């Protein structure tokens, strides 16, 4: 029997497994995916949000605890736990040497993402390289890794973990860490959570999943049914507007559309529905998934003209291109006269100003609803381009409630030997909204805590038996 069973195979699970092994426990890790798809959503990540007091290798300047906390407070609108959030923030300032020891390498902020050079440490090669490094290190340290081993249910006794079941196989361990992700890949669950809207549509049917297909939420559902304390709302998730042609799963970063703030966005009725220039795109990209989810058909169209070309990250799929706006409307299948009305109203509402995409400039609209507060230039220079966008779910926020020991709780009572990390509990810190790299900060901090606690639970049990 292994001391610690880690269920999951992404960043949080690997951090837990490595910490437990380093603490002297024997560890088995069960990854639901086959080896070639291992790593959950971590394989699509690219950085870690890091508190730091002074420049640190790839991080410039400083990012103090208070500023990190205020950023988190702002994006979550208060749907966070300050105690746990500060724990994550502080851990983010000390975890990188440990990550490097396990083979993770960092690189400077990517070209085109310079706004994160101060706050985010990028993984060289991205999240899959990080996951690979952790698996190599786990193997070297003697962690037993099993792929294609999805856990269906657990055996619990009075809040204690006894065993996990992979199909008919029963796997006992002295303690366990749950780090098996959210339920974003479970389309049925998403459908139920989002329900039907006033138009009679089931919005979630039109969602794309940006990450892994293996996060079915099986254990999350099991724990909820078993009476574990939960946190968060099942409709809350990291959700981005992504290219409508993206694959159903694993589209990752390259399907993003980064030209929203350079043009306008219309829905299926050819109407604008939100201020495209409200704030810098990195601060706003994560709200557009929900915005589009609320539109008819859960689809929208980002429209730009030739002036925007070369100013945003090149999208993976080429846009619909046309020499006239009427042609664009026809190519998109939108009502041409309604589309032209919207465009003309917007174009004539643009007030002259000094366009500067690097600041909140003074190019805005007056007399049109919704307003475009910045970077509002008339769309008048052919060729025109359009990108259809759909909501893309990155990960869900409904999770298990924890304290600073990462212990699973039932009726406020922490389990002595069952811990949880990663997306399965990220909602404690991140109840709403998102800020780049914070998912990996939470996963790393709580993965490491859960692994340490799981190993300690075993050692405590041993010394109790010995005494």
């Amino acid at each position, binding site marked *: 029997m292994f001391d610690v069973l880690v269920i999951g195979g992404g960043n949080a699970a690997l951090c837990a497994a490595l910490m437990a092994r380093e603490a002297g426990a024997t560890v088995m890790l069960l990854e639901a995916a086959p080896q070639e798809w291992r790593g959950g959503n971590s394989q699509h990540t690219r950085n870690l949000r890091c508190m730091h007091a002074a420049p640190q290798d790839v991080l410039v300047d400083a990012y103090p605890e208070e500023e990190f906390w205020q950023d988190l407070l702002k994006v979550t609108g208060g749907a966070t736990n300050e105690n746990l959030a500060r724990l994550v923030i502080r851990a983010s300032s000390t975890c990188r040497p440990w990550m490097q020891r396990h083979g993770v390498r960092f690189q400077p902020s990517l070209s085109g993402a310079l706004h994160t050079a101060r706050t985010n440490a990028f993984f060289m090669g991205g999240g*899959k390289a990080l996951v*690979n490094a952790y698996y190599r290190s786990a193997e070297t340290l003697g962690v037993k890794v099993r792929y294609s081993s999805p856990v269906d249910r657990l055996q619990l006794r009075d809040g204690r973990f006894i065993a996990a079941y992979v199909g008919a196989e029963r796997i006992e361990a002295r303690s366990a860490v749950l780090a098996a992700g959210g339920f974003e890949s479970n389309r049925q669950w998403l459908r139920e959570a989002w329900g039907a809207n006033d138009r009679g549509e089931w919005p979630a049917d039109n969602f794309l999943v940006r990450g892994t297909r293996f996060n079915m939420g099986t254990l999350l559902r099991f724990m909820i049914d078993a009476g574990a304390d939960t946190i968060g709302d099942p409709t809350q998730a990291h959700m981005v507007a992504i290219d409508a042609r993206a694959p159903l799963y694993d589209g990752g970063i390259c399907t993003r559309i980064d030209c929203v703030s350079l043009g306008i966005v219309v829905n299926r009725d050819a109407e604008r529905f939100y201020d495209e220039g409200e704030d810098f795109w990195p601060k706003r990209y994560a709200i557009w998934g929900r915005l589009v989810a609320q539109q008819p058909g859960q689809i929208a169209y980002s429209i730009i003209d030739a002036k925007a070309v070369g100013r945003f990250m090149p999208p*993976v799929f080429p846009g619909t291109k046309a020499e006239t706006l009427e042609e664009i409307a026809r190519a998109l299948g939108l009502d041409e006269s309604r589309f032209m009305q919207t465009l003309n109203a917007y174009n004539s509402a643009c007030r002259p100003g000094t366009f500067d995409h690097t600041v909140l400039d003074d190019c805005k609209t007056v007399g049109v609803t919704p307003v475009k507060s910045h970077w509002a230039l008339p769309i008048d220079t052919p060729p025109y381009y359009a990108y259809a966008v759909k909501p893309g779910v990155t990960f869900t926020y409904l999770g298990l409630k924890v304290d600073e020991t990462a212990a699973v709780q039932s009726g406020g009572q922490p389990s002595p030997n069952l811990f949880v990390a990663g997306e399965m509990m990220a909602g404690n810190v991140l109840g709403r909204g998102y800020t780049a790299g914070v998912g990996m900060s939470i996963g790393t901090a709580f993965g490491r805590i859960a692994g340490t606690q799981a190993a300690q639970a075993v050692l405590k049990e041993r010394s109790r038996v010995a005494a």
Partner: protein
Amino acid sequence: MSQLDVPVRKTVLHREPDPRSASGDGLTANEREVGRVMQICNACRYCEGFCAVFPAMTRRIEFGKSDINFLANLCHNCGACLHACQYAPPHEFGVNVPQALAKVRLETYTEYAWPPALGTLYKRNGLALAVSLTSALALFLMIAAATNDALWGAVDGSFYSIFPHDLMVSLFAPVFLFSILALGVGARAFWQQSSAGVISGAAAGEAAYDALRLKYLDGGHGDGCNEVDDRFTRFRRRFHHFTFYGFWLCFASTTVATLYHYILNVPAPYGYMSLPKLFGISGGISLIVGTAGQWWLHLRRNPLQQDASQRSMDRGFIALLFLVAASGLALMWGKHISGMPILLCLHLAAVMALFLTLPYGKFAHGVYRTAALVKWSIEKRRPNSLQLSED
């Protein structure tokens, strides 16, 4: 094409009909694949820190033939971006940067070869090598048989008594000079395909430094490159260094010996402590170590990380270098054995085959890659015309 490529094409290539792609975009299928892959990479960019290919990519939003050929030759095939890729097979995007670039690399060698008709030798490189080696061996055996009483038996240890010095020079010099010319013409065509701009001293120095220490086999983090799997190893870089510097030591040995012969009037044989011998022995040993190591690595390399059709060219070149070095060292120690004349024929044939195939085989990678490194070190010093940003 693997079956994984099929959904990829359906997914990613259902883009706006590009008028060029149907008829005359001037791209080969392999170049078009690089263009497709670069479009995906450019929207991701996670691999920027590994090498020069990705920073060079981010300076472009469209990928024409000259861009693709440049990137293909800038790639050192370290494999880091394949193992780190979230879009690598079995993902439906099927992104495999090192393999896509390797395939185009071979095409650029073929395309820039001079005279153009001989470019096809790259595609039948195993055959070209075998014919060169056997013809050269036959030639030297015939000459030796015609000018000596017997090819087997006691000899005085003098190579010149079997092949007079002038005869060797008259055979090797023209072939060598032609090969240098052919490589030079090819490299010039590659250089001129896109205007790189003016070479500054700093740019040239950096490119030379990066080439001589194989900077881009260090993975960007110094842990090395990938061979079998996602584990990094420094062995490829080390063995390549042994091969590369061994080759030039051997070359230096020959050059110094030529100077001794013509300038100082001191003909071979030279003593063990002479410069030609010191260079030759150390170079030969280094080549043996390097090529044996590279052979071993090549056998184990992940198939996804290579273009299978180039295996015979790669291994043929490695084997030929090994043969040159091993036969050269054997000759030194076996000067007085009965088989010396045959051994000498074998060594000379190996060197001749090497010279003959220099501009039509794996050796060319060094020339084109160095040219690409110079282009990159010039380009990176120029302001970037794009203002791409996530903001």
